[in-house]
């Protein structure tokens, strides 16, 4: 089996006619964990959203392939069924749809018609994953993200990740709003997925999470593109010294993008 891969080249993305991504490139393969770090407002969520196909973000040039196929030719649901997953920074709330019904629909959407997951199997798997994430079982019957705290929403995103077992996952600020215990729990869940068949792109602006999920590559994003890449030691230096040294090194005054 070939390892999954996501390749992005010279990507330009606009929102409401403002260019936010300005020549972004990366390659994420199965077995690799990449971290994208960067201050607020540098285009990290824009990257994640555009790759998943968020309706508000317009790809103006560049390309992306997922396992060799043109990502931007696929509908949102096709990208997901091909094995791409996005844990969102701000997931929607959907009233009246229980978490369990939603996850089951999603699992079945990824399976052939006639090969739906049995209710027993589903319940067993859901119980197991919720256990891993130390989630209360009442979350199964609660409406999707409705009234969830910030931290509960993050855990719920990771629950979906564990249930759906995608090939490449993008985690957008999955650590914000989590206390250190919750962070460890979530990291444990993600580490369980580590294998050659799974690649991961972790977006964060703290290095905290990276203490628990060791990245293979660390990239710094500013002004809508990657400005520096390295290994785990780069994240440690950012933790110790902040971002200013990079700005100085590269002569960047304002690292953000799209601000008036």
């Amino acid at each position, binding site marked *: 089996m070939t390892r999954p891969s996501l390749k992005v080249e010279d990507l330009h993305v606009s929102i409401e006619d403002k260019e936010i991504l300005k020549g972004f490139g990366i390659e994420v393969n199965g077995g690799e964990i990449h971290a994208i770090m960067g201050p607020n407002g540098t285009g990290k969520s824009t990257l994640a959203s555009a790759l*998943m*196909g*968020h*309706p508000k973000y317009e790809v103006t040039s560049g390309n992306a392939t997922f396992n060799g196929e043109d990502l931007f030719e696929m*509908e*949102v*649901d096709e*990208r*997901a*069924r091909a094995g791409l*997953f*996005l844990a*969102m920074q701000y*997931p*929607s709330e*959907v*009233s*009246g*749809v229980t978490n369990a*019904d*939603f996850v089951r*629909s*999603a699992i079945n*959407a*990824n399976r052939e018609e006639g090969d739906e997951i049995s209710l027993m199997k589903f319940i067993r798997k859901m119980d197991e994953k919720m256990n891993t994430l130390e989630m209360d079982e009442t979350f199964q019957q609660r*409406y999707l993200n409705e009234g969830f705290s910030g931290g509960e929403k993050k855990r719920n995103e990771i629950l*979906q990740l564990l249930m*759906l077992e995608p090939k490449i996952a993008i985690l957008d600020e999955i650590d914000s709003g989590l206390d250190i215990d919750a962070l460890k729990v979530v990291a444990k869940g993600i580490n369980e997925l580590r294998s050659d068949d799974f690649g991961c792109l972790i977006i964060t602006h703290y290095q905290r999470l990276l203490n628990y999920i060791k990245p293979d590559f660390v990239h710094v994003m500013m002004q809508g593109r990657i400005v520096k890449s390295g290994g785990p030691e780069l994240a440690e230096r950012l933790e110790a010294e902040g971002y200013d040294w990079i700005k100085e090194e590269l002569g960047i005054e304002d690292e953000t993008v799209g601000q008036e």
Partner: protein
Amino acid sequence: MTAETKFPVNHNDIKSFSKDREEPQWLTDLRISSLEQAETLELPKPDKTNISKWDFTKFDLNGAFSAEVSDSVKELIGEADKAQMLMAQKNGETLFQKLSAELEEKGVIFTDFQTAVKEHSDLVQKYFMQEAISTNENRLTAMHAALVNGGTFIYVPANVEVDIPIQAVYTQEGTFGLFNHVLIVAEANSSVTYIENYITEGEPTQSNANIIAEVYVHDGASVHFGAVDNLSKDITTYVNRRAHVTGRDAKVYWALGQMNDGNTVSENTTYLVGEGSYGDTKTVSIGRGKQTQNFTTNVIHFGKHSDGQILKHGVMRDEATSIFNGISKIEHGATKANGEQTERVLMLSEKARGDANPILLIDEDDVTAGHAASVGRIDPLQMFYLMSRGISRREAERLIIHGFLAPVVNELPIESVKEQLIEVIERKVL
């Protein structure tokens, strides 16, 4: 505007129809005077929907039909031995009917309208189109009284609790115009649950349905009334369900699934007359195709401490248009009354139209009342979220629709209505 109206029936038709059915004289007279009213009265004027061009005269009174109990009827009534009280009618004729012997002994009456006017003439006459609705409200109520040709009478004596739901299925087929009347009387401290289904069978043909239900609830009695309207797109429907909650602490609970595919005017009115009386209305509606519908719910408070609740959710697809009116009217003297209502409309396509109009009319100071309403389109971010998990656009819409209707469907007090509705919704959102 009445001049051009050509009724498919005249006095002689009605006389012989009434005679054939061996009806008491009072009903024959009422039919004839109502026909005269129908010729001069105007159509009802539901707020914000213009129905002046709708054809309410395109029907026959004797359409041929097959008298077999169809599979869809069987499906609705389920296992015959489980449901002990059933009525199945087609084009006004009773196909079969069942009442438990035990309840019959206790004095419960459950019979078709035609039998009721013969066997319980005084009782029917006492209530039929008296307090809850009158024959001369508009042309359609008058036509109804003139032409009533199907329906059911339910009488529950004082202190009798009917603990098994009474179920009725009314089938319309062909050009037959269905003028169905349901009359329910719940005497003091009695209780009953009644569930009705309206369905169309056979080849699609233009026709009309004119449906009236009257519910009288006396002291301390309670009536649960569930309905799933599911007439086909060729049927233009007028349906008016009214409760006269006469008694002290009397209660009525409406659970209405408004799922017709044709143009429909649906009114539901609860008169909270008794002190401490309670009315609860929950409705779910789905509009599709090019149909136009008007759903008006009125709760009119006369009784002190009366409490009226309205909750309506509707989904509009395709090019469907619907108006959701909610009117809570608190009359002078109805102190400590409480009236609350919520109307929510979700539109799924650019061409769908929906409007929600909550209205509070209050003529008394010492009351509480509140309303909420929203009309909106499906949230593209919700769609993105659901689809980002691999769920197709269609399935994502289906989940959102079910979710939108869930707050009403889940609260429906009658389990079998809930189940039937979930099935109808499922079919309509595919």
